[in-house]
């Protein structure tokens, strides 16, 4: 039960942070590119694109590793991007704004450079979690369904809490740093506490226990 609880919590946290970054992403871009439909188009494009690539990469990582360590590293790096985004976003956007002024591709490029990597990393999380929550083949539909549902609830909270709470209480940078810390701690927890996949072979499990 504890193991499932940890994995579901991870799903909620990453889902929350993902959508929160998407909402805050618009706020990062607005000073330079405005708030018109093309800005939201760029933000949504980047996140969906990053997710689709993240799913592929995450799936491959899941097949390759049989414990949650890889998952922890992915989340940790994503968290690091959240932490350093406040440092590079504004200088980069000022540069972009000047060179790309009046170019409709500018906002798309800027959104990609700022948000692609962190959202791609968070996109990797879902398939990796699927592998870890798997217990038996008969219940695979139920477990993955529940996992996706919980991740999406995280998304919903990410959107609503950001819109109605975070932007009113905190500056952009503070929200980013806060989420970065939470993501990093989640990643570190996964790295520190071993959760082997039920799909690992007897031999692999032994190996995992030894390294732990």
């Amino acid at each position, binding site marked *: 039960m504890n193991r499932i609880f940890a994995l579901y919590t991870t799903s909620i946290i990453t889902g929350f942070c993902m959508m929160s970054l998407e909402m805050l992403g618009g706020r990062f871009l607005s000073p330079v590119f405005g708030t018109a439909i093309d800005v939201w188009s760029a933000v949504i494009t980047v996140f969906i694109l990053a997710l689709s690539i993240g799913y592929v990469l995450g799936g491959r990582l899941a097949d390759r590793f049989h414990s949650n360590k890889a998952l922890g590293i992915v989340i*940790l790096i994503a968290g690091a991007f959240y932490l350093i985004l406040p440092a590079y976003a504004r200088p980069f956007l000022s540069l972009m704004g000047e060179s790309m002024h009046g170019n409709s591709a500018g906002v798309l490029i800027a959104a990609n450079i700022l948000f692609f990597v962190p959202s791609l990393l968070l996109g990797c999380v879902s398939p990796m979690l699927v592998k870890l929550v798997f217990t038996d083949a008969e219940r695979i539909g139920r477990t993955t369904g529940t996992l996706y549902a919980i991740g999406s609830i995280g998304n919903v909270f990410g959107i609503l809490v950001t819109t109605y709470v975070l932007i009113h209480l905190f500056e952009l940078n503070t929200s980013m740093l806060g989420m970065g810390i939470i993501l990093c701690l989640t990643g570190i927890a996964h790295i520190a506490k071993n959760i082997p996949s039920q799909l690992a072979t007897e031999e692999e499990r032994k190996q995992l226990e030894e390294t732990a």
Partner: protein
Amino acid sequence: MNSTTIKAVLFFFVALTIGLTLQQDPFQLKAIAHPEDQKVLDFRDSPYSHISWVASDSGNYAQLRFFDKVEGGVCLRPTWAELQELALSKPDLAHLIPKTAVSVPENIANPGTLSNTRYVCLYPSSILLNNSLIQRANGDARQAPANVLVVGLGSGVGISVLAHHFPEASITVVDIDQTVIDMVVDHYPFIASLQNEQTSDGRPRLILDAADARQYITYEDMRRDPLTRYDVVVLDAYTSGSTIPSHLMTKEFFVSIAAILNPDGILMSNIIGSYTGKKRYVLGGAMRSMQAAGLDQVINIPIMTPGYIGSIDVNDTRNNIVLASKAPLTPDRNSHGWKRMEAFTPWNELPTGAYETANVVLIQGQQFDSSALAIPTGPLRETLIENAIDARNAELSSLLDKRTRLLDTGDKQGVKQLDRVIPIMKNNGVLSQRITDEKTSKEILETLKKEHEDALNWFPVKDRTLYFRYTDWVEFTRQTYKLSLIEGRSQARGVWQHSADTIVGSATATKRDRTTIFDAPIFTDAQPNADILNR
């Protein structure tokens, strides 16, 4: 704890340290050529924007900003308190003294009504052009009992301009963002006090309402019985990044505005754009959409900058005051209105030479290279102003010589060009001069060293020169108004250069290929793209 975990924790702390130490301030206060004494008075976040008040004594402004874009600014001096003092000896300003006593907190800047934003200097034109409204005031334009609806509050400076010049006007402001209204009420006591004031016939002088303008007009104004009729509707709604919300720039919206306007009523919009290049679509599109909505008399007054000769190029992106009505607006068909506009002097009661700023910036090549530092009042400042006036007069007389030569050679085009340049060089409230004299530069920097810590970084000044800027704000606003009207009235080959008929073609025209913006779209609810077309 194994080694991987320790590495992970270390990695986390490195990233956290980078984020905490290198994170960038959300305000771009220290931007080059901005005054060094700029400070943030207050900031708040809203669902729409990040809103801040930024002020500078040496720039004489308090600006409201959305993110780091300036939405509008008012001069810090004369303060409202100074204006009230002035009003004791000038009965024309008596309406600036509140009837209901107001206590202004000490930590508030308390700006007055003088504009630091150029386009709002043209706001009086919307009232002065309205013949039946002025008739109702028995010909005294300043007593016009106008009903005004303003869409988009911004810093509130536009409201100040109207309230300063037209004490009998009743103004309703609709702004979608309650936080903007709160910020203005909290930091602009003059605007806040207007809410408790009445015109002589008992109408409120100011109502501030947080609502979407389109919803407000459809569900409030148009449902009132009897129907609310306005003499002026001001459209100045911008999101950050100089985009106009697309639903406030459609034919259907203008139809509903036409429904709440009096027969002589005027829709006045502030539209950023140019006549050629990418920025032409929204300006041209706005004019055509207004025509299509039945407000078929449309003229533009391009906003001119005193002192910057380059700005008379009508192809530059600039603020434009677009006026639309069912009644005629061009100088030939509304000559009374134009006479009233040209006889009108904004901030007529204020003394010139009292509210000025003088500062220097380092420049390298053609680029500004530092923040602007204020030059304190004293003999140095006087000398610099005198020198700058001398330099300008020398340039002016050389231009006059050139004009005489061109007249002799019969170069009509050249003379015409000079005739537009010369008036804006005369007393325009702005002086700017590159200081090439080494002795003067040194003297300035020595003086500044005592006043500003920043100036210490300017030593030694290698390959760079100082640039002196001086502005008399009363003169500046008056000249902005005057020069913009001169440009707005300009005529070539018998047509008004800035009437919609010339720019986008008349409302009934079928062929538009001879017009300036021949490919201007009509914005409709089905295709409302004013927000993205200015990219």
